[in-house]
């Protein structure tokens, strides 16, 4: 296990390994998106209160889950980068930030579009769930900004790792805000100890979409990391060999 972890941490192995997996991941991800969207938009029955409007949750909920999941990945690889000074962990951390920011932005926008017809407002400043999710977006933007503000990139990565570890505190606040505080946003439907309070025919497409979103993140992360690996190692022999094979024939 440790050996495998070590090998994967070496840039050429990572580059070869990820190149083999990418087409398969993309295919599975695409199929899941098609099934999930069909399930969410056609197969799932309309809700008894919100009728067809609830279907925006098939984008909103996976995006919101991913906004927190990607943050955890970013913070954990940040910790690995601090402790073991592992290059690949730095790359995963840095490549995750813009993806996480996009998921957060998507969750905020779809939530707003959902909120206007259902709640009667686009945005509510007093709602802890909404505001903590906005803070998450600012944390991601802070990570991206801090990295580009420091010239020494190894040092920049260390600083970013500390920032993302500090920001972890926001994750439980986002999750528990709707349980501990009274908010406009409703409580959790799926992620609670009780049975999910959602009809099975509505739940299955949601879970498929959640897996599709995870795979999508994995794919974009691999693509970004591969680019970053090539750029950082651009002067090394293995990059010349790998790219040379393709360009020179």
């Amino acid at each position, binding site marked *: 296990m440790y050996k495998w972890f070590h090998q994967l941490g070496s840039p050429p192995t990572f580059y070869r390994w990820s190149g083999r997996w990418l087409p398969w991941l993309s295919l599975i991800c695409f199929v899941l998106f098609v099934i999930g969207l069909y399930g969410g938009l056609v197969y799932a029955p309309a809700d008894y209160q919100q009728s067809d409007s609830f279907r925006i949750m098939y984008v909103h909920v996976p995006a919101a889950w991913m906004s927190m999941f990607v943050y955890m990945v970013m913070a954990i690889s940040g910790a690995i980068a601090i402790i073991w000074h592992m290059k690949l962990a730095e790359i995963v951390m840095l490549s995750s930030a813009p993806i996480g920011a996009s998921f957060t932005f998507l969750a905020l926008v779809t939530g707003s579009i959902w909120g206007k017809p259902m709640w*009667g407002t686009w945005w509510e400043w007093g709602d802890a769930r909404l505001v903590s999710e906005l803070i998450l977006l600012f944390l991601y933007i802070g990570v991206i900004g801090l990295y580009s503000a420091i010239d020494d990139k190894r040092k920049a990565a260390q600083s970013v790792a500390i920032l993302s570890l500090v920001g972890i505190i926001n994750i439980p606040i986002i999750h528990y805000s709707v349980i501990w505080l009274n908010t406009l946003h409703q409580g959790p439907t799926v992620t609670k100890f009780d049975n999910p309070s959602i009809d099975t025919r509505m739940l299955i497409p949601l879970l498929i979409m959640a897996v599709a979103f995870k795979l999508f993140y994995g794919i974009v992360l691999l693509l970004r990391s591969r680019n970053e690996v090539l750029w950082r190692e651009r002067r090394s022999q293995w990059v010349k060999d790998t790219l040379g094979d393709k360009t020179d024939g």
Partner: protein
Amino acid sequence: MHPARARRLKLVVLMVVSIFIAGGFVFFAFQENLMLYFTPSEVAEGKAPTGQRFNIGGMVAAGSVVKSNESVEVRFDVTDYGKTITVTYGDILPDLFREGQAVIAKGKLNDQGIFIADEVLAKHDENYMPKEVADSLKKKSSPQQMEGSKP
């Protein structure tokens, strides 16, 4: 483990733990201010600010909605099944507004203890089900399940 790495591991753990402790203190100190609304019981206990705007939240009591014939003005009771407050509102209600569903009203209490709202938001619960299921649940007469766990 290499001693330098072990030291950094300890530092990272220490940092995360202290952030969570600090965050916990801040959260519990500001908890009251992070609440979006007061329930009718809290208003009755005098926790809500007097003479200024605040929000109340609760269920729209069944059978309490009275619509005016001349204007869009509407009057309804907001309840947390303990205390009840009467709310008047002179604008268009959100689509999801209905009896037995949660709402948040923004406005002021007048001298008669009536809440004059200038904005009403509908709060929906975390239950999703098709209409047939909701209807059959209603037939089995389990209103608690229909209305969700908390207002």
